[in-house]
């Protein structure tokens, strides 16, 4: 956090406040937070009006301990940000807004005049100063929540990285949540986190077993979260008539003994649609969209360990039977956990098909740095109107999730139109 806005003062000049009272509401880029008093005092002067954006470190009010001193500040003007006023009467302190400290359950830091050792037992304070680590974010196990030597030792043993002392006013910056290749433009700001208290879960007493997450699941979880949080998803759907595909499959099977699935057709159709609408085959590199040279289709395969996406490389240039064989091989080896890294790392577009599970329609999560993922549902028999007549059709609904930074609505529409067209007229796949 670098700037904040005082939304509302809860104190007046000349008014007194006690420990724990709200002094003002401060709007940050994440939320509006109450700034509470760390100890009691009397407001001598308010230095900033409501509604203006001010930088971190700017003094916002002058507080005195004795109401009699308040008048001395009647004409006091705030100095430049980050410089505490000099020559103040002994009892006065200026409270600058410090960044509300997120994560690690730390209370909002008080102004520079507050005693940082107040919650630290002597040995803990010694460790903090000697090692230049700010341990004030720890939850203290001593009386009244004091942070003990043991608390600090335990945190250090667990590998906790403490911010340096004196950097307490700056917001902690965690690792940037970048999609694999690209650096972020702005530092990652975690939202304030409330520590989860397991005792709040009501237990029925029924037996249960905790299953620890595998690395794979942890990675899936992490990447999915990052994708959903930082890729602006846009969605569009289209229905494609499956009559042609059914006919083609029957023909290939009966005449040539070639087995081809609907999904194989989908993959080829996607590949050709990408050839026709290359914008949908781009990636986001952090600042701009970059077109891909190849059309490599990642095919979502469900395995007991989790979802994995082996790649059909250069799908536009492969025939249906080749695609079919490759997909079957990749899927089998995926389930046996025998894929090589290069077989599932990469890809320019993902296809995910839940038709075999009876799903008619669903949305998938974009797999960065790819720009799109097509979620394909199963065939649905229904009646439709055509030229005033009722006709029975079997259609398949596909929903495209796309990174809005790369693929805009017209591009998505164009791609889907092309895709649906290829599906409806699969003879075009060989042209």
């Amino acid at each position, binding site marked *: 956090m670098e700037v904040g806005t005082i939304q509302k003062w809860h104190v007046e000049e000349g008014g007194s406040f006690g420990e724990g009272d709200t002094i003002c509401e401060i709007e940050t880029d994440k939320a509006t937070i109450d700034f509470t008093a760390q100890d009691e005092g009397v407001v001598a002067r308010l230095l900033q009006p409501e509604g203006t954006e001010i930088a971190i470190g700017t003094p916002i009010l002058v507080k005195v301990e004795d109401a009699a001193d308040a008048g001395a500040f009647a004409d006091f003007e705030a100095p430049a940000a980050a410089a505490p006023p000099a020559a103040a009467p002994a009892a006065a302190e200026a409270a600058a807004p410090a960044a509300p400290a997120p994560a690690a359950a730390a209370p909002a830091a008080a102004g520079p005049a507050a005693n940082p050792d107040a919650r630290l*037992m002597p*040995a803990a304070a010694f460790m903090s100063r000697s090692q230049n680590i700010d341990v004030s974010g720890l939850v203290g196990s001593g*009386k009244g929540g004091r942070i003990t*030597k043991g608390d600090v030792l335990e945190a250090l043993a667990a590998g906790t990285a403490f911010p340096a002392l004196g950097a307490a006013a700056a917001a902690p910056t965690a690792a940037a949540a970048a999609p694999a290749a690209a650096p972020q433009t702005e530092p990652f700001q975690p939202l304030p986190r409330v520590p989860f208290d397991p005792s709040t879960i009501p237990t029925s007493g029924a037996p249960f077993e905790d299953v620890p997450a595998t690395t794979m699941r942890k990675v899936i979880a992490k990447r999915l979260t990052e994708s959903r949080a930082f890729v602006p998803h846009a969605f569009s759907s289209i229905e494609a008539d499956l009559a042609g595909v059914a006919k083609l499959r029957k023909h290939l099977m009966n005449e040539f003994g070639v087995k081809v699935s609907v999904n194989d057709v989908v993959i080829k159709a996607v590949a050709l649609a990408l050839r026709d609408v290359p914008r949908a085959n781009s990636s986001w590199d952090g600042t701009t969209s970059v077109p891909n040279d190849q059309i490599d289709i990642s095919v979502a395969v469900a395995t007991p360990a989790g979802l994995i996406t082996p790649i059909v490389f250069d799908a536009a240039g492969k025939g249906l039977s080749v695609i079919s064989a490759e997909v079957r091989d990749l899927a089998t080896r995926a389930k046996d956990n025998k894929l090589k890294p290069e077989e599932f790392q990469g890809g320019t577009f993902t296809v995910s098909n839940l038709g075999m599970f009876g799903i008619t329609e669903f949305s998938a999560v974009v797999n960065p740095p790819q720009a799109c993922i097509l979620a394909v549902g199963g065939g649905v028999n229904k009646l439709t109107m055509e030229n005033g007549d009722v006709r029975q059709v079997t259609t398949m609904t596909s929903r495209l999730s796309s990174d809005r930074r790369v693929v805009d609505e017209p591009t998505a529409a164009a791609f889907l139109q092309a895709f649906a067209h290829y599906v409806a007229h699969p003879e075009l796949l060989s042209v």
Partner: protein
Amino acid sequence: MSIAALPRLRAFAAAARSQARALSSERYDVVVVGGGPGGYVAAIKASQLGLKTACVESRAARQSTLRDAAAPPTRPVATRRSRGTLGGTCLNVGCIPSKALLHSSHLYEEATKHFKDHGIVVNDVKVDLDKMMANKASSVDSLTGGIEFLFKKYKVDYLQGKGTLQGPNSVGVALNDGGAETLDAAHILLATGSEVSPLPPCPVDNAGGRIVDSTGALDLKEIPKTMAVIGGGVIGLEMGSVWRRLGTKVTVIEFLDHIVPGTDKDVGKTFLRLLKKQGMKFKLKTAVQSAEVAEEGVALTHAPAKGGDATTDHFDVVLVATGRRPFTEGLGLENLGIETDKLGRVQVDEHFRTKVPSVFAFGDVIDGPMLAHKAEEEGIACVENIAGFAGHVNYDAIPGVIYTHPELATVGRTEEQLKEANIEYKVGSFPFSANSRARAVGDSEGMVKVLTDAASDKILGVHIIGPNAGEMIAEGVLGMEYGASSEDVARTCHAHPTLSEAMKEACMAASSQPIHF
């Protein structure tokens, strides 16, 4: 419940009082049965919190005796009638009189044995036992009088008589002066304390002055030549010390193989060695079989605890100090179906409430160490709970002190307890022989031992043998209350030269290294 409960409580009490009731009844918010350290403290606290409070105590003051005539009376004789006396066992026949005698006898020992080391030559130092006892009595009187004054100051109604439970909200009082009252009480607090546990082979007769318990030992008419103390616990060792200093040959007879059971064994061994060095004799692992008063004294028959031939020795006085038990006789617990366990303790929950929601109990009459300050803490916590606050007793930080010389003081856990709980710990120890102040005053027996958690350095126990250990232990208690590590104490400035530096150095020994040893 919060402080908002107070106005409700008062309003309720006021409404109750305004109802028509029997002439001798008054509706109290709290009636405390028992005016010892637990009871009187609870009563004063209750009144301070705005609760209408009464305290019922049956103990009557000692009648004046020839001995007392030797000391100036504290008030004109005409007004001295049989009057109640507050303060319980502690003030009347426990802590206070024993500490007075311990100090007096200590001064005598210093004068006769150690003054010459300081170049003070005194000849012909004698003991005037009557004066010593009168001095003890007057300190007891002034303190019990002091509590009466506190009751007046804080508006606690003091009823001198025996209290009996008559109903969940009713206490009957058989007044010492005759007559009876019935008190109507929203809450009844039982603080009737404890009495000496009898030892059947050695029937106590304090008036006879031969086989006595602690009460009798505080009031012997003359200094015995020989004394057997049965029981190597706190009371026996303190009383034994008093008389040993005054010239008695004291033998302590203890059933176990160690004295002060429950104390850290290593500390207990040092303590035993020091007491022996002072001339106290010990017969450990010995069981007493019988004691008979005879012409030439008391014939005490004892045998090895594990079995064997009995021996009979003669002692002028035998002090029975094998323990105390809760005192609930005549309290009327059975009227309300309140049960006691096999040790006679009233059963309570963590809010000191018995199974009858309006009846509470704390102090010696319930489970836990029989210490006056434990009773006080519980009394306050009990009353605070009733008044709507969150009363709390930290049983892990209750100190224990033995007022011999050197004193022995402990708080927290012993090495044995830590081993049994599988807690890895460190030991930091510092002898008073390396403490400047102790050496300067020539009183350097003993040491400070600090036990800390091996991982976090948190102080888990403090054990001190030394001059003023009972005062020094307060630092350990405070530290434990705050969850301090030994390094925290080591990093705190201690005045020089004081005995308390030994605590600092022991903590340094536990967390890094001492400087002075």
